[in-house]
């Protein structure tokens, strides 16, 4: 019924639970962009978008319930926003024929489009990003050869998500001769990190990466301040770089770095459009001050990819209510060029995105941003991941999963 | 099961110099007495004299610091209560210790526990030998139920029963174990005369028909005088008298310590 009137896009969001703080701006960003398309343009190419939120609370079982409930309404794509939920629905996708877009999170090996044709994690993955961080460190230290004997730590949520970058970093440690140490933070006690920081203080790693989420982030930043860890050697994943993570520590957190793959702030024409068409108009729940916040922008970025994939699919299948399979094609053939970004009012917001049949990640560059005590500023240039390291890892892991799960391997011509 | 007539036999249980204390409290001091086969022994004494503690010692719940217990010729000092049960000692309690959430029938069935042999895998099937065994024992239990005249409350959860009936069910549970030695702790507390008559009847019949040896604690002197073969009197943890009821009733120490002013009336009635 829903699917007849428009393209049905369920959003698995979490505005409640322990991770609500991170979930809310993302949900707002996603919603607002779709709402903008609907109110300003009447949808995409005249086809309305029907957006429905399903609250997961970041819980996997609830997420699966959401998935099962919404899939029968003609969902064209899922954005699960939780590595746990992503993992749980990935096996169902080939049978349900609905693609999953886990943008910059989820199961990294799913970037191998031959094994996981239905899963997309563009524009980049945790593994790629980890390699970017190491590259950055090498730059700062004066070259890869200087990495030898250095110590790099990873403080991470002790959860599938947090453990994602470990294989890559281990591999790189072997390649470049640096020592790699992990500091897991259990989700249940992420607000009590005393031991973790004592360990970090004891080991004194030269550089520290962070894969954190929710309340773990601000607590970790306080922990770093407590043990006087140098902030400019502390680099967070793109999920540890929201304003709310550092705002609380303010000046004391100055110098903290985080990875990023889209713009920060609201200096793009698109945001004016959103202000004009969306903010303050139901169902948007966004307070105006949230515009330009990191995770809000991430939501926008995610929505742009979805919308552009739909447009791509329409280019082939016609301006109609597309289905999951068509959407999958759209995602695989997406071509978000700089020119297109400009058209969208997002010039320079991110770098052009393309993926392929084999590569559902796209291996896009990442840059680092820096907290200056009151706001984020762009700190480094766009840095390309070490594809030569990451890609073989992805393929090997995907192969292993394919064997375990008896997954067919698709030929990409 | 022997259907003997009452004939008091050899010593079944012998207690020698039992002493038991809890921290500073001496509950029992140098107590010795015996229980003979087939007899009904009453243990009386003022409150806190150590009567219940005595039963607890006999069935292994309390471990006396000193003394020796001989049961059927076997000497023991320490044992777990379930070993006592295995050896054929069953009992009832002063504060009712029924399994409140279970029905009367189930409570009495637990008394058969030691007699049932099938392991839990058979029971999980509830079929064949297990079912047969269950039904056999159910028959025995039904006999106990008939005997105690509690057919009507067979399926009632015992927690809801009035006090007197609970005491009766408790007796039933002990009887179902077909014990050699039955220990009863104030089986008739909280009953009116008619109900006491019933209980006495049951106790005498068990003793008569099955030759079960019985040791009971009771405060109602008329009951004690009427049904016991022998009476042991405790006071402050010491034994102050031991003998046939008539003799004990006239014992000066017993009158002072226990019977008090009312013994005249008791005797008169």
């Amino acid at each position, binding site marked *: 019924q829903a699917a007849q009137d428009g393209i049905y896009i369920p959003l698995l969001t979490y505005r409640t639970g322990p991770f609500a703080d991170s979930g809310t701006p993302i949900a707002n960003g996603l919603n607002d962009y779709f709402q903008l398309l609907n109110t300003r343009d009447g949808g995409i190419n005249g086809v309305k978008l029907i957006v429905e939120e399903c609250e997961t609370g970041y819980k996997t079982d609830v997420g699966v319930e959401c998935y099962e409930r919404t899939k029968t309404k003609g969902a064209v794509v899922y954005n699960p926003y939780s590595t746990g939920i992503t993992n749980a629905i990935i096996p169902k996708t080939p049978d349900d024929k609905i693609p999953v877009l886990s943008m910059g999170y989820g199961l990294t090996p799913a970037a191998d489009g031959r094994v996981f044709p239905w899963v997309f994690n563009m524009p980049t993955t945790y593994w790629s990003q980890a390699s970017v961080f190491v590259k950055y460190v090498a730059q700062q230290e004066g070259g890869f050869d200087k990495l030898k004997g250095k110590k790099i730590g990873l403080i991470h949520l002790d959860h599938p998500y947090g453990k994602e970058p470990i294989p890559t970093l281990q591999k790189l440690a072997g390649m470049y001769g640096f020592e790699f140490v992990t500091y897991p933070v259990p989700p249940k006690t992420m607000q009590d990190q005393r031991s973790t920081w004592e360990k970090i203080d004891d080991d004194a790693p030269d550089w520290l990466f962070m894969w954190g989420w929710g309340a773990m982030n601000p607590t970790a930043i306080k922990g770093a301040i407590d043990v006087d860890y140098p902030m400019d050697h502390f680099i967070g994943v793109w999920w540890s770089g929201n304003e709310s993570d550092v705002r609380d520590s303010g000046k004391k957190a100055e110098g903290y770095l985080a990875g990023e793959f889209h713009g920060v702030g609201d200096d793009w024409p698109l945001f004016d459009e959103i202000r004009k068409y969306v903010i303050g108009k139901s169902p948007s729940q966004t307070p105006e001050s949230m515009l330009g916040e990191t995770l809000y922008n991430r939501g926008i970025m995610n929505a742009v990819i979805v919308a552009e994939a739909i447009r791509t699919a329409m280019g082939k299948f016609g301006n109609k209510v597309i289905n999951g399979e068509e959407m999958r094609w759209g995602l695989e053939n997406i071509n978000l060029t700089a020119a297109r970004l400009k058209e969208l009012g997002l010039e320079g917001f991110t770098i052009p995105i393309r993926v392929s049949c084999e590569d559902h990640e796209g291996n896009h560059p990442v840059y680092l941003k820096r907290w200056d005590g009151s706001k984020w500023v762009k700190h480094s240039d766009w840095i390309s991941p070490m594809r030569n390291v990451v890609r073989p890892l992805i393929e090997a892991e995907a192969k292993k999963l394919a064997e375990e799960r008896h997954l067919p391997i698709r030929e990409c011509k | 099961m022997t259907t003997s007539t009452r004939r008091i036999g050899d010593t079944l249980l012998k207690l020698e110099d039992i002493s038991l204390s*809890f921290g500073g*409290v001496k509950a029992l001091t140098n107590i010795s007495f015996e229980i003979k086969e087939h007899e009904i022994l009453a243990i009386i*004494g*003022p*409150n*806190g*004299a150590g009567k*219940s*503690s005595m039963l607890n010692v006999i069935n292994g719940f309390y471990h006396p610091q000193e003394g020796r217990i001989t049961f059927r010729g076997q000497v023991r000092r320490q044992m777990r209560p379930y070993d006592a049960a295995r050896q054929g000692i069953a009992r009832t309690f*002063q*504060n009712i210790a029924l399994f409140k959430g279970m029905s009367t029938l189930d409570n009495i069935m637990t008394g058969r526990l030691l007699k049932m042999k099938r392991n839990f895998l058979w029971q999980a099937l509830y079929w064949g030998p297990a079912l047969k065994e269950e039904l056999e024992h159910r028959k025995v239990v039904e006999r106990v139920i008939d005997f105690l*005249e509690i057919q009507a409350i067979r399926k009632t959860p015992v927690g*809801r*029963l*009035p*006090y*007197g*009936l609970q005491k009766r069910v408790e007796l039933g549970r002990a009887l179902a174990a077909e014990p050699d030695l039955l220990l009863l702790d*104030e089986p008739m*507390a*909280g*009953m*009116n*005369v*008619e*109900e*006491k*008559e*019933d209980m*006495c*009847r049951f106790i*005498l019949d068990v003793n008569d028909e099955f030759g079960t040896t019985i040791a009971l604690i009771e*405060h*109602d*002197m*008329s*009951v004690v005088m*009427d*049904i016991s073969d022998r009476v042991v009197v405790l006071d402050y943890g010491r034994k102050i008298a031991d003998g046939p009821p008539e003799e004990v009733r006239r014992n000066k120490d017993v009158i002072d310590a*226990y*019977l*008090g*002013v*009312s*013994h005249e009336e*008791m005797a008169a*009635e």
Partner: protein
Amino acid sequence: MQGHVQTAEVPAAARPLLSVNNIEVIYDHVILVLKGVSLHVPKGGIVALLGANGAGKTTTLKAISNLLRTERGDITKGSIEFAGEPIDHMNTNELVRRGIIQVMEGRHCFEHLTIEENLLTGAYTRRGGAEVRRDLEMVYAYFPRLKERRTSLAGYTSGGEQQMCAIGRALMSRPRMMLLDEPSMGLAPQLVEEIFEIVHRLNQDEGVSILLAEQNTNVALRYATYGYILENGRVVMDGDAAALRNNEDVKEFYLGVSASGRRSYRDVKHYKRRKRWLA
């Protein structure tokens, strides 16, 4: 025979201190236990409530002290008045303040409190340390055994000691009216007499009214002024204690004496089923 007690102390015209009017009690919304019970306790009277196991004595007392609600029981009909005031929906602690206290069946001592602490909780509703101490000494005087065990945890004392503790605890509240549920249970014969003496003395000296549920009919009727017999949740007989003592049925079933004098327990050969007043 229904009527008010006529004793020397209480003028005939006096209104009863406690009256229970035709109450009906249901447990768990389905189990009907009291089917219209009425009884009256005059000021300064000792009234005995007799009846077989399960007749509903405890339930009646709990209905008065309003402990029923804690057992998912409900008074569905009738009313209860104390000193002319309806009390059926008053909290138990409010009733204690007004002077009604119940000694519960089965002791219910606070296991983890010492005997002395148990007794002191009885004085919870009272002020004035000195007076409470005096009463404590009084209770110890009544029950010397308790004094010996004053520092033991109540949970570790013997059954009889706990019973004394429960009664002593109730005395500590200086009640105007006591509801005693089987006070003699588990007590040595000597102590049974003593307890009834204490009750009698309280009644005489301090005018405490007593409602007493008791299985030891013998003693109960000796001390009571009036009695009610409960069967199956109904009052089947009531009257002056003396009259009840001489009633043939009561003699037979509650006192254990038949025409030929007291039977020996050993001689009761045949089970006889009690004749029910209400078949």
